Structure formats: C-alpha cells, structure tokens
C-alpha cells in the first residue's frame, strides 16, 4: 500500500508542480492555535511538518527558536504534540503530517514508545535533525516497521558516495538542505547552484521524492519549481511572531502566507 506521503507527491506530480511543505512548531503560540493553524493551512499545503520543541536546539535559527521557546513557555509537552496531531488527523482535509525535532526528545521518551505513539496519533513521517546516517539505521528500521517514513537529510557537504548510501536506505522522501546554514538563513547560494546539487540526488534515484528546505520564502520559492517538494519553515514561524506583535490572529496570517506561497508554484 502506498503511504500518504507518497500519494501526496503523486498528486502534485500529476498537477505538474512541487509539493508545498510547511513547518510550524506544535504549541506555537498556544496548543489550540497551533492546531487551528494546521487545519487552516491544509487548504493549500500538501504535507505538514510539525516541530516538537527542544530547549537546546543546535541547528535552528532565531525564527524557529522563538517559536520553540514560545511553545515551551506555554507548557508544551510531547504528549500535547501527539494530541495535536491526533486531533488534526481527525479533521476533514487532513494532510500527511511529519514530526520534526531533536533526538534528545525521542531518546528520553524511549525510541519504541515514541514511534508507537507516533503511529497511534497518525504521524506519517519523522525528521530527526541530529541523528545522521548511519547512526540512524536501527531507528529508521523501527520507523519502517511501524509504517512511518523516516526522512533522511542530505546537505551540500554530503559526498556523492555517502549520498548514494543514504538514498539507498531512505524511505519515501529525502530532504535536501539547500546550503550551509541553520534554519531561517538568508539564501546565500544561487537557486541555480542549489538545483544543480539537487539534481545529483535525482540522478542517483529518479523516483525518490526529494524536497528542498532552508532559505525558502515567498521571494525565493518560485525559483525552485522544478523540485519534487519545497519546505517553508522559518518564514512561517516569523509570520506567527509578527502577528503576535501586531495583536493579529496568527491563523489568518498563516493561511494567507501559505496561500501566497502556493500561488507562486502553480
């Protein structure tokens, strides 16, 4: 049986456009609001990544850090994250949902228990930022056994040989980090160069769903239309920060932002 993630990519390919992946942090700015945001942006997004906050993030820029600290200040716990996904997946337009975070949270919770809880809550995929290949082999297997896509990451520093190995052991989707950066960095490499690197992945495996993330905003997204999927995270987290500052409703703001992003890639 094809996974929900695979089906989402297939649908986009039929429509001749990249999949739009969003990233928001569970519990930002409240548990209730973050669920509302997910439901609202599902109108335009194809796959939703949801961050589970950790207070010692080593790969996140200021925007996602702000979102994470806000969520933690509001008391978000892992059990709430799972509850948010569970409630979201019950909604009528629910899209595939990928949880993203740091290994410490999984480790403390217990790998098996974590993956089981993901399955029960309807999580479709997992991205663990700091559990690189090949150290993630066992965990990745555990995910697969529970029908959860473990998303392998690739970066500009990944050698071709390593890329080959990682792709061979990957599931339904791989994630290409566009440049040497933490999340939310300014695009410091030209889209052309990024797509050149990206095409290395596609040459290794044409059929593999490969998404590009880091540095993608409504200004840059159109340049990457050729990719299978594009992830926008920090820009959305900043959207939430901005709307809170202006005492606006972040749900409406995010809905508009994702709508605009979508309009640039169709």
């Amino acid at each position, binding site marked *: 049986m094809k996974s929900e993630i695979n089906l989402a990519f297939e649908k986009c390919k039929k429509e001749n456009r990249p999949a739009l992946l969003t990233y928001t942090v569970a519990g930002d700015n409240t548990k209730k609001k973050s669920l509302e945001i997910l439901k609202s942006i599902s109108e335009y997004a194809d796959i939703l990544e949801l961050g589970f906050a*950790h*207070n*010692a*993030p*080593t*790969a*996140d*820029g200021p925007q996602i*850090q702000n979102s994470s*600290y806000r969520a*933690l200040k509001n008391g978000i*716990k*892992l059990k709430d994250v799972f509850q948010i996904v569970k409630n979201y997946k019950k909604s009528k337009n629910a899209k595939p949902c990928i949880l993203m975070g*740091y*290994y*410490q*949270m999984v*480790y*403390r*919770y217990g790998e098996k228990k974590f993956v089981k809880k993901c399955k029960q809550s309807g999580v479709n995929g997992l991205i663990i*930022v*700091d*559990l*690189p*290949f090949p*150290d993630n082999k066992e965990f990745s297997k555990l995910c697969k056994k529970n029908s959860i896509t473990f998303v392998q*990451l*690739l*970066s*500009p*520093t*990944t*050698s071709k040989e*390593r890329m080959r190995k990682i792709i061979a052991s990957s599931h339904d989707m791989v994630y290409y*980090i566009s440049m*040497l*950066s*933490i999340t939310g*960095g300014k695009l410091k490499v030209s889209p052309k160069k990024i797509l050149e690197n990206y095409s290395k992945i596609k040459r290794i495996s044409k059929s593999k769903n490969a998404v590009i993330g880091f540095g993608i905003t409504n200004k840059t997204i159109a340049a990457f239309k050729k990719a299978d999927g594009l992830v926008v995270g920090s820009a959305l987290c900043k959207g939430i920060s901005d709307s809170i500052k202006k005492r606006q409703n972040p749900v409406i703001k995010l809905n508009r932002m994702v709508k605009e992003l979508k309009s640039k890639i169709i």
Partner: protein
Amino acid sequence: MKIKKGIPLIDQHDKNGFYGGKFGGNYIAETLKKPIDDLTKLFEKCRKDKNFIKERDNLYENYVGKPTRLIKLQNLTDHLGGAQIYAKMVSDANGGAHKIYNAITHAMLCKKAKKKYMCTDTGAGYNGKMFSMVAKKFGLGCKVFMGTRDIERQKPNCDAIRKNGAEIIPVTSGSKTLVDAVSECIRYWVSNCDKAHMGIGSLVGPNIFVKICGFSTAQISRELKIQLEEEFGEIPNKLKLINCVGGGSSAYGFWSEFFDYDKKHIELIGVEAGGPKNSKLHAAPLSKNSKIAILHGAAAYCVQDSDGQINETESCSSGLDYPSCSPIHCFLKDVGRARYTFATDEEAFAAYKLVTELEEISPSLEPAHAFAEAIKIAPKLDESNIVVVDSCGDSIKDMDIIKKRLGSYSR
C-alpha cells in the same frame, strides 16, 4: 564496562564514538558530518606526526610555561591537621588556566586545515581568553560565543578577549550561560563550517572534540607524575587527586596518567557545582544522579526534566555552570574509577576564603569547589595521605563576585 590499561582513555570508544557503549557519540546535523570527519582525520594524522608534537611541546614549554608548579600547602595542612595537602598550580599557565592547552591544539589544527579563523564557546571566559590569545599568536581570527549573563559576571576575561582582538558574540537565548553559548557556537559552525574551525572549550561535544580536549589537557598529569616522583621518590601509595568538574576538561587532564592505578592507591575525586545551598538548581549531573541526555552532540548525564528539556543550572562559578558533563566522566563514574561529589556555592566561597587567608595562592571559584572537598576530607585522614588539588584557574576573573560576596578582594 571496563577501563583498558595502557590505552589513553580518550581512545577507548567504539567505532561510533561511544565510551562504555552508551556515553558520547556524534549526534550532529548532516551538514557537520563531513567537517567532523575531516577534523577527525586531520587530528589522527597530526597526533602521530613527530613534528606536530614537537611544535606543541615547544609551545607548552616556552609559551604556556612548563611545568606549572606543584606546591605544598603547609599552612592549610597544619590548620586542618590531617592529610598533607598539595596544589598543582595549573593557574600558573599563560593566561591563568588549563584552557590554554586545548586552545593551542585547536589553533595548530586550524592552521593545518588552512582555515583563517576559529569559533569557540566560553563560560568563565577562560576558554575564550585562551582562544583569543593563541589566535593572536597564530595570526588567526577568533569569534567567542558567550552568554550575556556570563559577560556580566566575568568582565576581566571579556576585557582580555577583546584586547586580544577577538570578537565576543553575546548569546541571549535560554539561560544566557555556557549551555546556550555552546549551542550558538555549534549553530554558527553549521552555517560556516567551510571557513571556520570550531573548538569546543571542554571535554564535551561530538567525539572528536572530547578527544582533542583530553589529548591537550593531559599535559597536566604528565607534569604531575614527574613532580610527584621528584617530591616523594615514587608515586605516594595513598594519593587523592581532587578536581572540579563542569565539562571536565581539567579533571581529565589532571587524572589521565593515573587511570590505570588501583583506586585504593590513587583515588580520583571530581567535585561538581552544587549551586546555592537553598536552591533546587545545581550543575551536578554526576553526583546528583541525573539521567542521560543528548546535548551538544553527545550522550551524557545531564540535568533535565521528565520530558527531556534541559534544566536551568545555577552556580557561583560560570565555568562549572553547565547542565551536562563529559561522556568520559560518565564512563569513569559507571566503572567506579572516579568518585563524584559536589560543593555548594557557600562551601566554595568558604574554601576560597580559608585557602587565600592561609596560603599565597588565589584559586578561582571553580577550583574553590575542589578545595572545599579537600577541606572536608583532609581532617579525617592521617598524614600518610597525600591530597593534591588542581588549582586550575586564577581568581582574578571572579574579583567582582568575590568582592560582592565576601566584602573584599585582594591579591
């Protein structure tokens, strides 16, 4: 889980970088995988290179100043009336603390890697200061990440860092202390790993940083071993080596020649920061039995909540104010080779006061924690016991804190 004899402890990890099968590792973003592999290859090559070692030894001798003194604290010994107390004056080292050893190795590696600048973290400011000194000496740029709370309380070292031409990058996230400085430094490296060399300031982080740091600070115990033989004609048969432990870089360096001895012969005692007496917060994951967490690329005992968030810490000493500790110390704890305890802020200040009143030395608040333990145990032991405390930092950086707490500060 066992220590293998005759092999440096830093090398007793498995192929994934774990000590005792569960401490350490390399929990890093994919982007850092290659820079870390490159650094690992470079380090392994350099440590076998006679010229590299010769250059390093030359720097230790003529730039750091070797050996740092081993002195008997006769007044303190008489006052306590028990074990004979000695201090290894590592604070004699150029710059005033043990952090100079690690900084030198990193600057040499940075040069070999043909990178133009280094980035590092700092808590007490000593690591930042030493990196800024060696950067200046080697003609390298240097960025020092430091929590704003530490910038406030460690002004003398901040002044030194700036004077040496390095840039201090204030870190305002989280608790604004060392833990956040390390996170921010790693984040910086993720974005700039093609240009910058990163040096972590303690025996923590992904495996290679643990190894480089331990390789460097090991100089302390090489000197100590010779000095003990000179002083006593042999290694004393009831010896206790007491060291403060934050990340644990000086403790590793102080002990590294002595792991193979029986613990009844040479006891290794690590003293963590217990924090203020009436506070629930502390920085003592080893002695207060914290669980394992993954922090800054490695698995180690770490103060955390039940959900896995890293807890805030509290200590009068910036250098020990860190929620986790080295994978090596976790290993030493679990195999029972070292004993870990803690001293409260109050005990550290009292130790500082007593030691400086009686002796012509002035340890910083980090080694004051180690002295507190020496003061606790010495009266219970007879004079056949030799207690050596690593006085690994100079108090000048703590001038303001000591003045505020004890009313005055003098040297």
